[in-house]
């Protein structure tokens, strides 16, 4: 407890600076929140703040929020946001809520960074782990990342998912498997895809158990999977009750993600592909795309069994690229995890290329979107081309990180190869 206080004292300055900076952006540029809320890079059909307002309006007027097919978010957001004063008349409360969520996420990141898990997992201790960044630095990188700030100002509901995922991981590394599974259940309830993180998260929980009480693996997994199911069941039941005792929300939230019925452009790869698709192939390719997304879970969990935190990070990166409705919020979550692996930065080979690609695409993206939508002198292909470059940048980062991790392991196995170039045979 004492150490926690100490930690908070150290990072209070950063938290304060981040909060003030965000509040300043909110209040000094009153048009900015609405501008960013409308950007397709930030707000997707399943996370948009504008759509949340629509759902909220219907909910407060005792109409099913899913009528009209605009609102696709989890039902529990509705009572939460109904408690807040209206975001139109008193926006400050909404701002404070979103700032608080960002700070909570940063707090979880500090816990993860300071746990020593990134370089020193139970089954693999990296020889380079001495070189690491403190939790404060990691939190600073997260809080002052322009993508995180833009996400906070744009107020998509994906920040709640981000926060829940980070807290799940933080609880896992602090040997609180129950909390971890509950947090992940919340994340899955809000955005569905985090359920795919359950296997590596359980491994992480298992590895971080305090030395004394080791339960058999299968029993541990069954127990905590059971907790997840129970927790999700509870959340679904609550949702069922607050949406007028109907199961309609399943089809409107998870159903939309599964069938991609809203084809609003976003930074991902799905929308353009499914616009072009003939209807008869649609269901087949939906299955293929989802299979592709979930296929990474098994493979990575088995291959990098020794470092579950790496698996979680790589999976978050993969999801930021390949999930149905990605936004820069997902990229900012992935980028928040990268500084945890400071020790393998020297092994990454394409950091400059990756950085430039992401930088270029984040400037060219809005420009091309402007040419397409406003100036009318471009077309959809312009924007899609840039989202491809964006995804390329992210996938370079994912593969580069994976390479660095594997090389780190490999150099422990083969000490004679340290510092030598690998060669494809």
């Amino acid at each position, binding site marked *: 407890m004492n150490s926690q206080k100490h930690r908070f004292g150290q990072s209070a300055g950063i938290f304060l600076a981040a909060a003030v900076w965000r509040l300043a952006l909110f209040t000094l540029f009153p048009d900015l929140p609405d501008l960013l809320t409308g950007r397709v890079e930030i707000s997707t059909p399943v996370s948009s703040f504008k759509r949340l307002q629509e759902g909220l309006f219907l909910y407060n007027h005792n109409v099913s929020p899913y009528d009209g097919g605009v609102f696709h978010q989890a039902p529990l957001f509705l009572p939460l946001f109904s408690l807040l004063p209206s975001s139109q008349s008193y926006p400050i409360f909404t701002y404070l809520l979103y700032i608080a969520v960002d700070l909570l996420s940063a707090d979880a990141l500090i816990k993860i960074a300071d746990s020593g898990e990134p370089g020193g997992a139970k089954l693999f201790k990296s*020889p*380079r782990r*001495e*070189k690491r960044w403190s939790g404060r630095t990691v939190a600073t990188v997260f809080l002052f990342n322009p993508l995180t700030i833009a996400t906070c100002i744009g107020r998509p509901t994906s920040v709640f998912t981000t926060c829940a995922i980070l807290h799940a991981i933080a609880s896992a590394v602090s040997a609180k498997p129950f909390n971890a599974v509950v947090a992940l259940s919340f994340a899955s309830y809000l955005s569905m895809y985090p359920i795919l993180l359950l296997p590596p998260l359980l491994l992480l929980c298992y590895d971080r158990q305090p030395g004394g009480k080791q339960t058999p693996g299968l029993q541990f997994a069954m127990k905590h999977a059971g907790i997840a199911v129970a927790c999700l069941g509870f959340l679904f039941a609550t949702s069922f009750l607050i949406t007028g005792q109907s199961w309609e929300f399943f089809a409107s939230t998870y159903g939309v993600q599964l069938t991609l019925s809203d084809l609003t452009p976003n930074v991902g790869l799905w929308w353009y592909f499914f616009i072009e698709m003939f209807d008869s192939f649609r269901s087949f390719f939906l299955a293929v795309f989802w299979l592709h997304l979930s296929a990474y879970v098994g493979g990575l969990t088995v291959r990098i069994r020794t470092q579950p935190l790496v698996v979680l990070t790589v999976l978050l990166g993969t999801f930021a690229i390949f999930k149905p409705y990605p936004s820069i919020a997902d990229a900012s979550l992935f980028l928040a995890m990268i500084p945890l692996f400071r020790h393998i930065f*020297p092994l990454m080979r394409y950091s*400059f290329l990756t950085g*430039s690609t992401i*930088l*270029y695409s984040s*400037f*060219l993206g809005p*420009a*091309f979107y*402007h*040419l397409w939508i*406003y*100036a*009318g*002198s471009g077309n959809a292909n312009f924007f899609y081309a840039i989202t491809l470059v964006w995804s390329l940048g992210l996938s370079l980062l994912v593969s580069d990180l994976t390479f660095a991790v594997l090389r780190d392991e490999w150099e422990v196995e083969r000490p004679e190869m*340290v*510092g*030598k*170039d690998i*060669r*494809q*045979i």
Partner: protein
Amino acid sequence: MPSLLSSAFSLRRDPRILKIPPYLSLVCIVVGVVWLFLLPLDDYSRRTYISENALLPGQVHTYFGGSDQNVFRAYKNEVVASDIAEANNTEVNDKLEGILKGVGLKTGRQSFKYESRSWGDEYEGENLYAILQAPRGDATEAIVLVAPFRTVDGKLNANGVALALTLSRYFKRWSLWSKDIIILLPPDSLAGPQAWVDAYHDAHNPSTVSSLPLKSGALQGAIALDYTHEGRFEAVHIVYDGVNGQLPNLDLINAVSNIAGGQMGMGTALQHMYRHKNNYSDRLQTMLRGMLNQALGRATGAHSCFIPYHVDAITLQPFSANPGSGWHDEMALGRLVEGSFRSLNNLLEHLHQSFFFYLLMHRDRFVSIGTYLPSAMVLAANFTIMAIFMWVKSGQPQPGTKTTEEETTEGDGDKKKPAAHAVERELFLPLGLVTAVQFLGVVPLFLFNHAPASTLSPLFILITLLSPLLPIGINFALPSLSQTGRLTPQHYQLFHSFSLLLLGMFLSTLATLNFSLAFVVGIFSAPLTFVRPVQNVAVKLLSAVVLNALAPTTVILAASFYVGMDISDVLREAAFGWEVWGMYTSVIVWCVWWPAWIIGATVLLGNQSIAKEKTL
């Protein structure tokens, strides 16, 4: 394949490969510039053509003429008598509204008031407009005829207003319109049309611009009349530059030029090239003038503010190259407008077939984006190449020095292979400096858009004098911020690398939005590619002089001196453009060009302690 790969890898380690990028950069710059100068040649430019078949330019008889000339004279007398130059805008509108109502049109009025300390005067006035409802349409589409009381030069546009009134009376008699026709009579060319278009699209600020009482459908095109020429004229000057260098669809210009040339026997001119001989130098000059207008991004006529709303618009300006020559009268201009409106009336969908990105060099020669964009892109690529080069270079161990950031885990035996693993870079200071300088650009931007008009030129002089001092100050202050208390060559390489990377990125993004501005900034920034921290005092001094001559502030001063404008007028117009038109040229100058220059100068004046050991 593996052997090929490994030979590629060994090539990567070859020290000679690191010598290439500076030359490659130079080649990029040269190619970019030469490319531009090749464009006017017949082999690289194309003849214009009408791409949208529905336009059918010049395929209809135009009947404007005869007794309408008497109507025109009567209206002109009315307009002159109402003294639009002096009288209160509202009083004039009272009178003109009566005329328009008399013709049988619905009219509306809109007041606006733009004021800011930065441009001194306030722009206040009232727009008058009338809507001719289409006999065969359903008010979903409209064409606009604009006749401001005053042109961009501030001249009285009595002929233009009278002609617009006459045309409205004439158009009302025809039953063939399938799109509404809006006659817009703003008091000036710069603020009035902008207020009207903003309000038409509900994008206005209600506190300064009032809403429109009457609206029609989506605007399909607009033609503005700038008719200050008295007596007969020879040809028509087509002005087509929009705000921020956006251009109308090429089909519109081609159609009007086709109707003027083919049907009326009237010449057309572009970019004030009244005597165009269609040879290389005239074409080049037309193109460069067009690029300059595009780069400045300011409004060049009442049509300019329509273009950002994706409404294709041009201004028609009758002229005589030789005073007194020419045989066309106001009826001919009226018929040109009639013909153009008949063409626009034919459109089944928004003009989209032809180009939005082009450079015109003669009324029937142009180059399209595919042909000219590479020159700006190659220019921007030069910065990126150097940024990558500087990054790679910064990762190499500095010979003869002990860098503090050695990899802790690497064994000593591997140090002999320098290129295999890069030394670790101290990233924090370079990233911080480049970010800070980038954000510092907001300060002059804010100052010039908010300071009172009278202080603008002293402020500019102050910034001009401070800019060269800033790099010296940075070089003085930075070493204390560094971990080691001194700056290494690696620091300077990283400053340079990040700054050039940002510049290259901004310029290539900008090139897709405003090619000319990207090209101009790119040309002036080209020397920044080659700056190095030199130790030789004479060379350093000489380079500093050259760099200061190409500083954004110096260039702006020199340019305003060259065109004979006072610097305060330039700044006032920039502030006005930013506030009213949303012109972003000043953003590019202060937040892209200026920071890049500051970092470039910092690198040039760099005083790296390592150099004393003669390692460079």
